[in-house]
């Protein structure tokens, strides 16, 4: 019963706490997946029933997709820079990612406007369920992006205080996981809405 055994116990417990936090995020991601699975299934169900408006995806959404993909790259750059303890690059990459996130949200709002210009409405007499689904799926995803931006800002604040480096990666890892997930989710939604409409 030496002191050394206690320390090894502690290391083990710490490792399991880190694992737990990652797992909490992953299960949270699963719940989001289930929500979107429900909506996309409902979409397919309703589409098969007929009375369906065949809409054109706004071109702006293609641009926002590209923006989000680029932001995933910069997110990864922040991650790999932090691993190499290149702290200045972490900061720049995180700021870049956050700005791209903002641009994405703004582009989504403008694409809503372009939809309205084409008389594709979310609600009201002349709206179709197809359009309502299009708005819901993209709007709720954008809400999640906003949550992701909040997470990014928290991570950025930590990074500006030089608290993110190769020996303290947890926050950044969680943030990156969430961000890549939101990116992947958007690509899925874009392809889904593009081909099944």
């Amino acid at each position: 019963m030496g002191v050394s055994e206690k320390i090894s116990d502690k290391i083990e417990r710490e490792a399991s706490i880190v694992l737990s936090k990652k797992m909490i995020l992953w299960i949270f991601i699963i719940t989001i997946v289930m929500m979107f699975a429900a909506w996309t299934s409902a979409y397919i169900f309703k589409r098969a029933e007929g009375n369906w408006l065949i809409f054109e995806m706004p071109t702006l959404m293609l641009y926002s997709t590209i923006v989000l993909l680029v932001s995933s790259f910069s997110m990864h750059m922040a991650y790999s820079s932090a691993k190499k303890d290149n702290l200045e690059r972490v900061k720049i990459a995180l700021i870049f990612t956050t700005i791209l996130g903002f641009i994405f949200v703004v582009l989504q709002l403008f694409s809503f406007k372009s939809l309205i210009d084409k008389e594709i409405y979310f609600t009201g007499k002349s709206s179709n369920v197809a359009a309502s689904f299009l708005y819901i799926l993209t709007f709720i995803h954008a809400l999640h992006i906003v949550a992701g931006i909040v997470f990014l800002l928290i991570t950025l604040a930590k990074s500006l205080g030089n608290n993110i480096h190769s020996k303290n990666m947890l926050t950044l890892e969680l943030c990156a996981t969430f961000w890549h997930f939101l990116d992947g989710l958007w690509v899925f939604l874009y392809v889904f809405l593009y081909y099944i409409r």
Partner: protein
Amino acid sequence: MAHLEHTAVHGHDVHDEHHEEHHELSFIRKYIFSEDHKVIGKQFLITGLIWAVIGGTLSMIFRLQLGLPNADLEWLRPILGEWITPDHKLSQEFYLALVTMHGTIMVFFVLTAGLSGTFSNFLIPLQIGARDMASGFLNMLSYWFFFVSGVLMFISLFIETGPASGGWVIYPPLSAVQEAMPGSGLGMTLWLCAMALFIISSLLGGINYITTIINLRTKGMTFDRLPLTIWAFFLTAIIGVLSFPVLLSAALLLIFDRSFGTSFFLSDIYINGHALDHVGGSPILFQHLFWFLGHPEVYIVLLPALGITSEIISTNSRKPIFGYKAMIGSMIGITFLSFIVWAHHMFVTGMNPFLGSIFMLLTLIIAVPSAVKAFNYITTLWQGNLIFTPGMLFSIGLVSVFISGGVTGIILGNAALDVHLHDTYFVVAHFHLVMGSASFFGFMAGVYHWFPKMFGRMMDERLGYVHFWMTFVGVYLVFFPMHYQGIAGFPRRYYTYTVYNAFNSFHDLEAFISIAAFITFGAQFIFGFNFFYSIFKGRPASSNPWRSNTLEWTTPLHPGHGNWVGEIPTVYRWPYDYSKPGAEDDFIPQTVPYSQTASSNTEHDAELLKNEQSH
């Protein structure tokens, strides 16, 4: 490795607090915004019991209407006010509200939050050997989301237009069109808000349960040494995490339909001869989304009760649980199947009969794992040295109602039979036995069994026996006759059946059921008295009153935050070594290594002993 070392050093300040057993938290941190899983479990328990009284009272009021339709209910006016009509009767709208709120409260607030919330929180860290949940903070949030959700639901009982009244399944268009009935206005809005918060609460809880069980088990606590309670809570949490988000999706779409003018679930509705603007939606779509949660919800309610029963029956039969791995396998089977049978609630929605028969087949397959569980309970009891504690009686009661309610499930699962039985009292009888009573019995069994661990005192056994027998006989007297009504086509949710000649002859039976229900409900107050009296004045408990094997009984009588003083015990064996041949005592706790039980080790154990020593 560098990574690990760093986090260890970094985490010193955070985790040393577990060892400071003596440092006092303020009252608010200790009992109200507590992050201790044991306190949170008790918060869920007491809140759940309060909801059970409310939900039960609502059912008593509508049983008055059903059993004694001609009674003068003027004496209820001080409580119900305008819900008693000028001719001294219960108002029709309020009857529907009562049925709806009874269902909602019992299914979600009592048997989901009250049962799963209480025992998952209380038992998971104690039985797997952890200091606390993976995230005490999320756990605390889980309770307080539930609390706020409860406040909203409670407020909705007192608003002028009444609470939601479209049935606990809130099918549109009734729930989606605000003008449809009084309860579809503000009451329904509050219902949806409350349920959204409730879903967040159960997700936070479920995420925590899964993470804790996977990551924080003590040394030696492998998955094949977990008590069956933990397996049940684990699978329940998985079901919740996968199905509750779908209900949230459906609720959001419903909110948009109600308040923002979309028409996901609405089409071709006329009110007073005028067509609504909502066109092109599908009310059946809502049913699909709802029952994708709704059916797994049945098992969210039932599995914890089954897990608790496994543990209690094995302990009090002084026998290992029969078919430990079969029990796990059947629970996994039930978990999997629960997601692919939802449409058996929708046989009469005009679905393709071929699709109906597929869902029928899948539904009937659930009978297999359920039967495995029932047989295993019986074979565990068989030739055991039964000790009839109140907890044991409620567990055996669970097995009884689980079987008698389960067999009618096979009848209802048949698409052809369901056409006749759908929405009759046969359905009411079926699910009140197999889901309502069985889960409630498991709940009560758990309270009686773990009360000494929760409060350090024993509940009174004689009052427990009275409570059990009145409840057990009571639920059969209440729900069994309903099968006959259902077969005769008696529809559920009807305010007055006396205007139909076909059902008039059931008047006496209805009165009988109502009186039995009143007595059964009254018996619950014996429990209530016993529970609260024993918290303060009960006989002090010993540290292991049931002579049980699991880890929670190795903690101090009043465990502090962190559960164990000093190191967490290591686990060497499965939790069901009761009456092992050759052993000195009739139980060997999980913390006893094989090296100390040479007289009872089997050949297989000898191999485990070798492993034990090589480490």
